[in-house]
């Protein structure tokens, strides 16, 4: 981990503190192509988000991105990876948090920490079926309410299914 922070010296103190505070939850810190990615366990998500927001000053959650690992996860791998793209203003540093979550598992909602996660999580639910516990009103956002299936999953056909829309 000391090597990973070498590319982003300004973030080193924050990252070192993170790893110390949440020993079992911060799984890895990588830097690739200038982007900093921190892999977390499910339970560590909200505490880490809160710590980054309140202490390290990452005051903006720019996006919540879901990846479907259907074809790339090996045995024992979880179906989805949920990414949280955080940004710090002023200063414009970025950090990406990655959490693996299985198909039937839920994730704690980030809305109590970042209000801007509201619709992003709804979109994640609509497109992938990832449930966020504690979200104030988790429902579909793009597709009609009675739509069956989650379109952005890798096993959902591009042309759609009968009985969809």
């Amino acid at each position: 981990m000391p090597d990973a922070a070498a590319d982003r010296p300004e973030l080193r103190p924050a990252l070192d503190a993170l790893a110390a505070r949440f020993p079992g939850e911060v799984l890895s810190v990588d830097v690739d192509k200038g982007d900093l990615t921190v892999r977390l366990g499910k339970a560590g998500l909200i505490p880490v988000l809160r710590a980054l927001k309140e202490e390290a000053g990452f005051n903006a959650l720019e996006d919540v991105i879901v990846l479907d690992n259907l074809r790339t996860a090996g045995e024992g791998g979880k179906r989805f990876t949920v990414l949280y793209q955080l940004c710090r203003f002023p200063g414009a540093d970025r950090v990406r948090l990655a959490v693996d979550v299985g198909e039937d598992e839920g994730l704690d909602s980030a809305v109590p920490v970042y209000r801007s996660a509201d619709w992003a999580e709804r979109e994640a639910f609509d497109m992938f079926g990832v449930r966020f516990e504690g979200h104030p009103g988790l429902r579909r956002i793009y597709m009609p309410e009675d739509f069956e299936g989650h379109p952005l999953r890798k096993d959902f056909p591009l042309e759609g299914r009968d009985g969809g829309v």
Partner: protein
Amino acid sequence: MAFKEIDLNMGPQHPSTHGVLRLKLAVDNEVVLSVEPVIGYLHRGMEKLWESLTYTQVVPLTDRLDYLASLSNNLGYVLTVEKLAGIEVPRRARYIRVVLAELQRLASHLAWLGFQANDIGAMSVLLYGFEARETVLDIFEEYCGARLTIHGIRIGGVPHDLDAALAARIRKVLDGIPKRLADIRALLDDNRIWKQRTVGIGRIAAGDAIAYGLTGPGLRACGLAWDMRKDIPYSSYDEFDFDVPLGRNGDVYDRYLVRLEEICQSIRIVRQALDGLPEGETSAKVPRVLKVAPAEVFHTIEAPKGVLGFYIKSNGTDKPERVKMKSPSFINLQSLEHMCKGNLFSDVVGILGSLDIVLGEIDK
């Protein structure tokens, strides 16, 4: 006869929702209690589609996201791919991209100005704004043949060169726009009715703005100098000298002033880019079939509507594994309810206009 709460429905077909947007309003005797936007009427499954196309094939589709500022979408996506694949864009191409992107910002803001004024009743400004926008669209048409869905920025550079004749025509267009802006400002800026409809309306405090993830001119109208062109410069923006206009109160009037001033700053940037256009190639050598080794990146630009971001994950083939677009209008629309609460029903249209949303971008 007074009525208590009524539920009103605006749209999806409504002259002022700027596209197919549905707003569920709860109104108490004209005062807005709650606003719930319902979206998805224009959802085309772009992200799903992109997973089955090559990186190059995706570029024209990004035009259709924010269709009033298609070059910005192109630029956002293309810069992310270049960051992912490690492609170095020649300096001349970067400058031409800046010219195109800033002209696009001009066009987008002029369209916004027309719509905003029309919603509040100043119909003639719609046409004056569009008249000015036409001159800019003519430039795009001359550059690469299209006016709206332009596809004028490609992976690695730009498709055509900007020769001296086109540069001269661009300068001529830039000379004409301030005059039109002055006409419009004379009609609106100090107009009592305009100010009554915009000052103090749709206010959002700076802290709330950041909490809701508001970006772009809406955030800058609250006094926060957050502009990706300055904070995380891309495409040689750090070589240009320009100001970031800021507002103070975060109301509709300040957003109006901020965007007007951004038009002037864009003109300034384009002039600098044209004056300092370096020699060189207009595109890097990019293989016809672009295969990218597995990696993932997130990159943002300052689009006219706010901070536009693309996340791309590659898997070693010529098609991306996942492309996610962070749409500024999608996030900005979340703050609509906060801005409308406590205001009158008649103001909802004005506030929605000041957010400057495009449904293509929201719904993907």
